[in-house]
């Protein structure tokens, strides 16, 4: 998934050698957006579609700035991010615990695997109305659903990761006299970490997708999903576009800043994957 982003980052680093090459690179990355933007503007100004439904880019930018200055957009965004982080932390704690337990003990695996295998193939949002009935409209349902849905990839990856730790590492650590505690901390955990991080990454992506949708359904007072959905009622297409842009930016930031940093600090540093 993040191949594209990484490729761009890598090319931009090697292109840093000479200024002309760098400029060309920026130009190359900007060019497609200019083309698409120009097409958009032409369609918008040509009044093929009603202006209300197909606003020009200036209108979108204007409402983006207006909403940001008024503090409405940041408020929505902050509420969404808080919800995301709460739900995701819930999923991370439960997911890693259950996954590691499943990887380490056979009975735990036999107990949890059937439950997880049955729950996982059902799309997360299909549970949404059920959660709404059980926990009511609002924050609790949204956070619980996000946590529930995000925990599946985390469980699966932690489980696979612990099982994929090389037998020979375990035996050599054992032969060198490591007790259970040290074995876990110094061998199993680092060995499984690349998988666990992949799981967390997938879980976060999953959480993010579900959160936007559940915010539309759960009637929370603030939140980007709700903002977009509410703007539809008043045909505020420009507000919707601004909201979608913020959602995209947050998604990209989570991926690039949070997870790449964590990976750099842990697995890359320990030499588990090539930088």
């Amino acid at each position, binding site marked *: 998934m993040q191949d594209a982003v990484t490729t761009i980052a890598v090319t931009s680093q090697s292109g840093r050698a000479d200024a002309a090459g760098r400029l060309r690179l920026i130009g190359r990355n900007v060019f497609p957006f200019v083309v698409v933007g120009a097409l958009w503007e032409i369609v918008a100004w040509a009044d093929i579609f009603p202006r209300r439904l197909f606003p020009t880019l200036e209108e979108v930018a204007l409402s983006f700035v207006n909403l940001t200055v008024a503090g409405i957009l940041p408020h929505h965004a902050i509420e969404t991010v808080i919800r995301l982080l709460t739900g995701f932390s819930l999923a991370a704690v439960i997911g890693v615990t259950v996954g590691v337990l499943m990887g380490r003990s056979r009975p735990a695996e036999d107990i949890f695997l059937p439950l997880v295998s049955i729950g996982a193939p059902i799309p997360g949002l299909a*549970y949404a109305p*059920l959660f709404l009935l059980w926990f009511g409209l609002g924050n609790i349902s949204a956070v619980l659903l996000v946590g529930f849905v995000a925990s599946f990839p985390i469980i699966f990856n932690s489980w696979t990761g612990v099982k994929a730790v090389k037998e020979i590492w375990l035996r050599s650590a054992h032969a060198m006299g490591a007790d259970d505690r040290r074995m876990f901390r110094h061998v199993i955990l680092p060995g499984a970490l690349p998988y666990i991080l992949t799981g967390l990454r997938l879980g976060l992506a999953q959480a993010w*997708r579900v959160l936007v*949708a559940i915010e539309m*359904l759960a009637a929370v007072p603030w939140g980007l999903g709700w903002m977009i959905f509410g703007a539809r009622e008043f045909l505020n297409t420009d507000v919707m576009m601004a909201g979608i842009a913020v959602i995209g930016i947050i998604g990209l930031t989570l991926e690039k800043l949070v997870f790449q940093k964590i990976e750099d600090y842990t697995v890359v540093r320990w030499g588990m994957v090539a930088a």
Partner: protein
Amino acid sequence: MTETGQRTRSLLRAVMTLTAAACVYELLARSGYFAAALLPTLPNIAQTLVASISDGTMIEHAIYTLYRVMFGFGLAVAVGIPLGILMARFRAVENFFLPLVSTLMPIPSFALVPLFMLWFGIGNLTTILIVFYAATFPMLFNTWSGVRSVNPLWLRAAGAMGADEHSLFWKVIIPGASPFIITGMRQSFLRAWIAVVGAEMIAASDWGLGWVIFDAKEFLNTDTMLAALVVIGGIGYLFERLVFGSIEHATVLRWGMMRSAKG
């Protein structure tokens, strides 16, 4: 312990777990502590499921959902594979589409549902387009990286043996990239399946499994909701296992591109 002995024991434990979970649920449902409308008993759910299947409503809902998923997924495959191949083969195409795709990808498909509802109304078109949007990216990326990762040695060997562009493409590049392409189809179907349920809930029409669940909520028909949930999970599992599993068997495993570890 022998392998079979271990497996029977695992199976036995799995059955025991599921039975225990069902018993706990049944006890909770019958205890009367929760409202019966919110927590229907298992026989109740089974009854609803059987009734709705035998009078054909559930099947019709499922057909609507499958139609939308297949249409959107088909479009995603039809766009994703050629574009992915073009991006991997031609520098200019890659330079143009990669920045656009990387920007659009982090936007969840559900965020576009309200916008598409305004543009395309409620119903099939919006749902299919949302499915298409959700399913295209995994397809595109896997095809792209699959074609890029074809072993250059094979290309040179085929070239040295006198393969022309045409046979190089069909006999080397396509089979070489096929494990990635099939993984892409699998992922993109999964995405499509998730997207269709969500899109049907928000952009509610009259038919579709997602709509059933959401509509049942209004009338507190929890048994209908759970029955639809079972159908959704069942269809998803069926496709994942049977359809994509057998495609994998018929192609990449047969060609020896991948060992059968994935089952």
